[in-house]
């Protein structure tokens, strides 16, 4: 079947939406290659069609292929999960976790828990970094001079003198790194679980 201008326009529209959907999830050259391959598929299907109703035939071909969003999600899931699990690097793991969070309910709650873990880790490390810069504002805060510790962190202006001294740096660093390492391991385990359940 030789396509009319309207048919060509329909294919270009599909491929444009696919390209836009892939843009955030895949490196540019990989996304371009994917779009080229999908276009090749559509052209092959069109060439093999002898139906008189061009519009109906084209819609059937695109429906068999899946919506651009569905195809992009499949690419994104394969790519981001692979990269995250193989490399274990922070950015791919965060990207894959984000993808899981926006595509499933379980992913959303898991990502929420992981976010809390990462933020807690960074907060503890921030305490360690800020202590030597603001020694009178960062530390362990007590309920009165001899009271129970109520919080660990920074206060501006300081209501009094914090306790804990410079040990707070060591404690903050240890807690922060531990939180980050355990959260990251949790994220990778979660992504491995998603990988097993993932639909092709």
């Amino acid at each position, binding site marked *: 079947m030789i396509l009319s201008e309207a048919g060509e326009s329909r294919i270009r529209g599909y491929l444009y939406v696919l390209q836009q959907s892939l843009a955030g999830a895949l490196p540019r050259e990989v996304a371009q290659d994917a779009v080229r391959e*999908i276009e090749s598929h559509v052209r092959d299907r069109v060439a093999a069609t002898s139906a008189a109703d061009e519009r109906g035939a084209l819609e059937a071909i695109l429906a*068999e292929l899946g919506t651009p969003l569905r*195809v992009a999600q499949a690419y994104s899931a394969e790519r981001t999960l692979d990269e995250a699990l193989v490399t274990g690097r922070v950015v791919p793991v965060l990207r894959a976790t984000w993808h899981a969070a926006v595509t499933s309910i379980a992913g959303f709650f898991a990502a929420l828990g992981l976010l809390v873990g990462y933020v807690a880790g960074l907060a503890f490390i921030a305490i360690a970094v800020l202590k030597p810069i603001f020694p009178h504002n960062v530390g362990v805060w007590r309920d009165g001079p001899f009271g129970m510790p109520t919080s660990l962190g920074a206060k501006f202006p300081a209501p009094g003198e914090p306790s804990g001294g410079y040990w707070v740096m060591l404690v903050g660093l240890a807690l922060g790194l531990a939180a980050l390492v355990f959260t990251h391991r949790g994220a990778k385990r979660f992504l491995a679980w998603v990988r097993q359940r993932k639909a092709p």
Partner: protein
Amino acid sequence: MSRDTWQEQLRRGSLDLAILLTVSAGPKYGLSIIQHLEAFTDLVVTEGTIYPILGRLTRDGLLAAEWVEGEAPHARKYYRLTRQGVKRLADMSDEWRGFTRKIERLMAAVEKERT
């Protein structure tokens, strides 16, 4: 687990093997792989989702991909098994045969106990 979920998991688990088997006969491009799968199985639900799997198998080193010009009015991306892919396919085929044999044996034993 519902019947649909079980069937879906079975389908997902066997798709990699089915694709590697299809390509093992010789280099094939995306649509020809899909048509081959559709002719012998009902594993392809959405055609567009096969391509990301082909991409993953290529990144894993099991398939090699190459664009071929001039065969059709447009270029086609051909896939072929790599040496690593041949070995993996042999392992997967053995595992699959062993697995189905055990399940068949179990089903036959249970059937025998019932009678």
